[in-house]
């Protein structure tokens, strides 16, 4: 940086540097403003009672338990569907596939899938799973729809994790006579589990934040489950959907409380994903 002769300051450099500073400050300050605003508006309305009682006109019109349970149902159902499919697909692409055209086609499809907006997934889910397959407005329809939505996240993170497993592991396993699937489930998957897990947690964050794809698939009911399994076939609105409803009804107190819960959940997901990468990723430690 320092020249032999006296340092010449360029005005254009300083202007650009100032612009960079302003933009960076703006980008980083946004999240601070958002968090402070949501919490300052949400805390006065926050009652612990709302978290443990369902919405009911008689006892507690602001109860959120039904929506919290629906959110958990959607997360559980979607992950149960998307994880095996996504991880399986990634295993095929990285470990089995020999046909380059097929791999390219799958990669392009995954790319396209991750670019489709959630409202389109919502429309597709509504007419395909809801109407054609007859699941109507139900948590299950929502799970099917979100499975398509998070599939690219799971496939991509699993592929990255698989690619980070050293080739020597595979050579050693094959050298010892292990068959392909035996090698995959005993050597490769355990060694890249943290990477896969990070992807799954990020996908969970995406599910928690999703609204447009759920509005016309899972619906907006807030009732408590009567039975563990049959609740999957009932309509159920998640926290984000309840936030949307509260917002359209101008119940901003409840909206901010839900916003606060969502921000905390997203923060926890991000922190957990980071913690896993930091502490468990054998491959990054080497």
């Amino acid at each position, binding site marked *: 940086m320092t020249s032999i002769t006296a340092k010449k300051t360029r005005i254009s450099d300083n202007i650009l540097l100032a612009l960079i500073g302003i*933009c960076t400050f703006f980008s980083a300050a946004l999240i601070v403003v958002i968090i402070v605003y949501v919490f300052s508006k949400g805390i006065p309305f926050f009652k612990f009672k709302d978290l443990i009682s369902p919405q009911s006109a008689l006892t507690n019109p602001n109860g959120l338990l039904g929506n919290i349970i629906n959110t958990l149902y959607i997360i559980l159902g979607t992950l149960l569907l998307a994880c095996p499919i996504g991880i399986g697909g990634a295993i*095929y*692409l990285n470990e089995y596939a020999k046909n380059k055209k*097929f791999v390219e086609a799958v990669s392009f499809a995954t790319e396209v899938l991750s*670019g489709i907006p959630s*409202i*389109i997934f919502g429309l597709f889910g509504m007419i395909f799973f809801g109407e054609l397959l007859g699941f109507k407005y139900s948590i299950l329809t929502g799970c099917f729809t979100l499975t398509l939505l998070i599939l690219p996240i799971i496939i991509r993170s699993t592929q990255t994790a698989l690619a980070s497993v050293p080739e020597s592991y595979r050579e050693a396993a094959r050298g010892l006579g292990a068959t*392909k699937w035996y090698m995959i489930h005993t050597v490769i998957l355990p060694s890249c589990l943290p990477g896969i897990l990070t992807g799954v947690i990020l996908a969970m964050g995406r599910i928690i*934040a999703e609204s447009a794809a759920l509005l016309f698939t899972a619906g907006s009911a807030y009732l408590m489950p009567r039975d563990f399994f049959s609740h999957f076939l009932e309509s159920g609105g998640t926290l984000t959907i309840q936030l949307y409803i509260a917002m359209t009804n101008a119940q901003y107190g409840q909206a901010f409380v839900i916003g606060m819960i969502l921000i905390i959940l997203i923060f926890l997901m*991000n922190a957990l994903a980071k913690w896993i990468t930091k502490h468990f990723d054998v491959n990054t430690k080497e």
Partner: protein
Amino acid sequence: MKYSIVGSNKTTTREEKAAAYIFIACAALSIIAVVSITAYMIISGTPAIFKVGLVDILFSTTWQPTAGKFGILYIILTSIIGTLFAVLLAVPIGLLTAVALSELVNEKLKKVLKSAIEMLAGIPSVVYGLLGILIINPAMYALEKSIYAGNPHHQMTGGANLIAAILVLVIMILPTLVNVSETALETVPQHLRLSSLALGATKIQTIFKVVIPAAKNGIFSAIVLGVGRAIGEAMAILLVAGNAVKAPWPFNSVRFLTTAIVSEMGYSQGLHRQVLFTIGLVLFVFIMVINIILSRILKKGEEDD
């Protein structure tokens, strides 16, 4: 052990074969999903085009579902103009932030900034919508009142207008722009920076004359991804934009392709509902075009390397 040295026994081969078939099915599902989404968008989006007429849907500006008028030109234009301006505003901010992250700040500050951007990306779109109607709309209303005070031709919108929606979109696509451009800047080989500095260029000159041009493919794909996110966003701008079908002037309440679907799908029936699927199809066509452009850029990037 059931595994013998000479050849594999029957159960193992069966398990091996089953695993291979299951995995190929999983991989094929992405393709099946894209094909069926495309098919269903076309199947459910085209009937209304034949019933109403292509020209009457795409190039008419009158949207009166109860009177059987389904012109969506204003809705299309709103989506295009809204996206265009959101991207124009967000690109400089995002790119300069990415420059700071990849070229200027130290590791510690970078970690903090990256977590902030990550959180921004994770905030649910409904929360952005909530903040939009409670922070941006009142501010826009104040501006509107001061500009149009005493103007009888202007219908007050309470601040729910195109500018407000654009501002929300800017914030929402910022993380995408920052992250993808930063990755692009970081892949620029170090020797390019060093040669430029050795020739006597300042750090800022190096960044703007060497590093950014070298990363232009990646930055371009960041922009295209940003366009895709902006045009597809629904819940955040639904209430912020005011949701009236009007020409996309800055202080008009407007309706986007996405918000048109969300706001009326709940109660629409018959032809009205089919037209909403046509709007979905129009949005889908935009997204597919964007995707194809993106994959072209990525392919070109690979060839350049």
